[in-house]
């Protein structure tokens, strides 16, 4: 398998607080990796380091065979290859649904308006939001916003999609519609890194599960193994705590 992203010895500190310590792991093309772990264990920071919203303190991120952390690399150019979906949606408030999916394509990828709109509509259809092209973000429910945010990221046609707890800010009845879309995407061969607290979902869609604890990867492996026969004490404890709820 060919690695899309290969993270080597990655570390991140905020001041003297070391949040990520010597993280090593890679994501293969077409692989769906979920990252689980208790709150504060560094899952978001890891994801944000991958697309350089946080600047790693040390280590390497190899993308297409090159370390994008050496100074030569253009951060903005690199980020085009990654789509990010945030917990808080972060739709552009000054654009309607279509505009949200079009603006990046036109300004960053320099696609023509016609082409950008065609691609945007294609992905809005995938997430089932194609009839809302004229709506403003403030007129949408949380689940609808998040589906548009997914379409916005997909419209850039990235190599990898990053999801940071995409359903954590949603009312319970809206979680399903977003997870359904993500499951569908996972089935299309899209490369995905997903931070989530939805254990059933993680079991179902993951090729690999990564369990993080206190800034390190404590254990990783196929979902059947991580959920059914974890080897680490802290993984067992975490799963017991989470699955009981």
């Amino acid at each position, binding site marked *: 398998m060919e690695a899309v992203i290969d993270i080597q010895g990655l570390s991140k500190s905020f001041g003297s607080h070391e949040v990520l310590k010597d993280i090593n792991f890679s994501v293969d093309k077409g692989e769906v990796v979920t990252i689980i772990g208790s709150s504060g264990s560094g899952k978001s920071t890891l994801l944000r380091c991958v697309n350089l919203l946080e600047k790693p303190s040390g280590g390497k991120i190899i993308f297409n065979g090159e370390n994008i952390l050496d100074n030569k690399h253009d951060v903005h150019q690199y980020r085009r290859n990654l789509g*990010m979906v945030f917990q808080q949606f*972060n739709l552009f408030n000054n654009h309607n649904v279509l505009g949200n999916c079009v603006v990046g394509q036109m300004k960053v990828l320099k696609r023509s308006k016609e082409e950008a709109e065609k691609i945007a509509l294609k992905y809005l259809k995938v997430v089932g939001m194609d009839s809302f092209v004229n709506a403003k973000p403030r007129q949408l429910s949380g689940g609808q916003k998040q589906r548009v945010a997914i379409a916005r990221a997909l419209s850039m046609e990235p190599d990898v999609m990053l999801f940071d707890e995409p359903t954590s800010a949603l009312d319970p009845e809206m979680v399903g519609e977003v997870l359904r879309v993500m499951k569908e995407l996972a089935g299309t061969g899209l490369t995905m890194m997903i931070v989530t607290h939805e254990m059933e979902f993680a079991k179902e869609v993951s090729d690999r599960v990564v369990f993080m604890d206190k800034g390190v990867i404590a254990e990783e492996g196929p979902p059947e193994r991580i959920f059914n026969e974890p080897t680490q004490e802290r993984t067992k404890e975490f799963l017991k705590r989470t699955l009981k709820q």
Partner: protein
Amino acid sequence: MTLEWIFRIVEQYWPMFLRGAGVTLLIALIGTVLGGLIGLLAGIVRTIPTPERGLKKIGLKLINIVLSIYIEFFRGTPMIVQAMVIFYGAALAFGYHMNPIIAGVVIVSINTGAYMAEIVRGGIISVDKGQYEASQAIGMNHIQTMMNVVLPQVIRNILPATGNQFIINIKDTAVLSVISISELFFVTKTIAGNNYRYFEAFFVVCILYFIMTYTITLILRYVERRLDGPDNYVIAANPMDTAEDIKRKTQGM
């Protein structure tokens, strides 16, 4: 016979009042627009993230210090005094008097710019951090982020403050009479003095000022409502219609 005098003054001097009101509006309008642009520029510069490299960092720091001095100085001194200093200072430096209306526009603009710079900076800072992060995550650089996502929201948000500044400027141009600009207040002083009718003349001008400011208020409210768009969205009938299709259909082709 106060009432009679009010009518007589209006009847006799309305062209002068109108011209004065015109000058006031002109100075206030151009001053607000130019000041708004100065403030926008200053606010944008003051929120540029600090570059990592040496020379750029020092350059930006210097510019920021100059901007701070400008902002603090013009917010911290009365406009009437600034008018005197700039007008007579220019006369001293260049040996001739500026056109008073141009002097007035300059003074109002830089004064407004100082206030607007802070308003714009506040507006930029108050845009949710998530808006920046989403733009960055999509691959936009700082300029693209500002132009396509942040500033449109800032401009919408500072519109009420800008309108407010416009109204303040309409009233505050009155102090420009000290450098003999024939704006509304100056004109009224002349009319009042010629007739020894101070109450009546200033009563008329009081109403005039209010009509101007209240009209601006109404216009601004209308513009704000228009910018916010309709409260409801239309579910697209045929979702695969692009904007072009919709345009074509509504034009009946």
